[in-house]
């Protein structure tokens, strides 16, 4: 037992060396991105490893004020609006759907809905987005915010988290409310929802982080850059010939910073939630 309590010194040194080195390697791309956003392209070419910028100059953010004929602020507002609205919609729709499927697993048609959803999440996502283009066209939603938001609303992790939570609610709790004469609506709003507040917060947080990163459906459903978000703008800037390297790094910083900050503020909830959502019942 002794060697468990006081581990071998040498082993500990090796463990720390490995952990620190790996962590620094994982974090280095962030540092390099941040530093490169403040260095002129020519300076990066001559000294790519310089660990900090020559001068702290924020001018690049006004230089990339317009990308692809659209204001940078438009992309930022799109990102915020599309992510927030699709998160709110997704949380409500998924919570209600998962709740119904858990409470009445054998109701006619419910199994079909479940299977339909499971098949959808197995389908190669990129290849699903292409026929979605045709569906959006048929629904007249092509190029609209509504189309983008509706498509981004559902996700597997969100569904599994809610499903898992509702399954864990003891039957007696619901039965007691039924005996007390509560209607299903009352059971939902007065018994289940108050219990579900923490999981709802977790799902909302994770959905926000995941939807912020979305790019392909947004690019496909959009008809012009007017509905692009930051990652899509970043991708189109990166694909241009004769790229503005410093500008790309500055835009990458803007795309990463909000979600990285949000994650660091709520890291415990995010990591536990993501692990739980993957390990479904």
């Amino acid at each position, binding site marked *: *037992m002794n060697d*468990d309590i006081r581990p071998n010194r040498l*082993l500990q040194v090796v*463990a720390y060396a*490995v*952990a*620190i080195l*790996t*962590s620094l390697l*994982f*974090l280095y*791309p*962030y540092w390099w*991105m941040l530093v*490169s956003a403040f260095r002129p392209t020519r300076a*990066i*070419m001559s000294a*790519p*490893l310089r660990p900090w910028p020559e001068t702290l100059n924020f001018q690049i953010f006004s230089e990339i004020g317009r990308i692809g004929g659209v204001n940078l602020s438009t992309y930022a507002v799109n990102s915020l609006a599309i992510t927030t609205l699709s998160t709110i919609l997704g949380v409500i*729709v998924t919570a*209600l*759907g998962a709740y*119904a*499927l858990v409470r009445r697993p054998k109701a006619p048609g*419910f199994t079909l*809905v479940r299977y*339909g959803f499971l*098949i*959808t999440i*197995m*389908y*190669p996502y*990129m*290849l*699903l987005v*292409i026929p*979605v283009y*045709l*569906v959006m066209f048929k*629904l007249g939603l092509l190029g609209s915010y509504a189309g983008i938001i509706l*498509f981004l609303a*559902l996700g597997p992790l969100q569904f599994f988290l809610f499903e898992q939570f509702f399954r864990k609610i003891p039957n007696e709790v619901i039965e007691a409310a039924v005996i007390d004469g509560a209607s299903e609506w009352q059971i939902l709003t007065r018994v289940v929802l108050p219990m579900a507040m923490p999981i709802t917060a977790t799902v909302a947080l994770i959905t926000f*982080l995941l939807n*912020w*990163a979305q*790019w392909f459906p947004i690019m496909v459903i959009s008809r012009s850059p007017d509905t692009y978000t930051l*990652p899509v703008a*970043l991708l189109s800037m990166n694909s241009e010939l004769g790229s503005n*390297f410093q500008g790309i790094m500055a835009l*990458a910083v803007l795309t*990463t910073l909000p*979600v990285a900050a949000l*994650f*660091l503020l709520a*890291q415990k909830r995010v*990591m*536990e939630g993501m*692990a739980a959502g*993957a*390990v479904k019942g």
Partner: protein
Amino acid sequence: MMDALGSLSRDRIFYLFVAPFAALTILFGVWPIVLSIQVSFTASATALRPNPTYVGFANYIAVLADPIFLASLSRTLLYTVLSVFANLAFALGFAILLDSTLLKRGNLFFRLAIFLPVITPDVAGYVVWRWLFDRSFGAINAALKMLGLPAFGGLSSVDTAMLSILIAELWHHAGFYMIIFLANLSIRDRALEEAAHIDGATTWQRWWYVILPQLRPALVINTVYALIQFLKTFTVVVVMTKGGPNDQTNFVSYYAYQLFDQARYGEATAMATILFAIVIGLSLTAYRIGDREPGK
């Protein structure tokens, strides 16, 4: 009779609850999948018309006879096997390290460092990696040069392009698999280890015979997730290589997308269906193998 009516209305509200979820699933999941499968049986030129010409399995036959597709499929499978193995080995190794008593201080920092890329928008992450690998801008070759090591071909060499995107994808995904292993490690039965220790088991034996079998749930889940993830590899190719050099990273998702872009809808959707079948087949196999033996 009254009872039946009562239960009917009790059920009816659940249909109301499920309706928006079902609507979104059907509109943006089931319908496009059905549409895609339908298109895979039509001639590309007529695919989008109201009355397309059905050509049976002609698209599938064309795809399976297409040498570029077959090469793309075998590279996709190779990449998937390598990535699943590399990601799970890294994630498991790091999870074991973090779970051990060796790293008491700084544990949270290490966890955050490995997990941060998971929530970093993949486009942003891969854009940075693309330039890190760059011959003239990139930090990687500059560092190798400084250390006196030979240059790394990165994305422009046929020998190293696949390895380069594997590294970038590992950076983005491994943290996710790691926290699943960590969650599994934290709920294991530690009494068994003490018993093994008392029985004189070595550290190695304890790991191999006592701890690893208890990690089976996480191993199965991670294998299935990683299989699905890497079979579909797409974003990293779009951002970093566009399928090149010399088709080395032209995986099925990307190739199908290119065909779609050229309005070869029939073949593109036939490829999608084939990839879908492979994803489902492999995932079910992994689940089955994982469930067969006791330990869960």
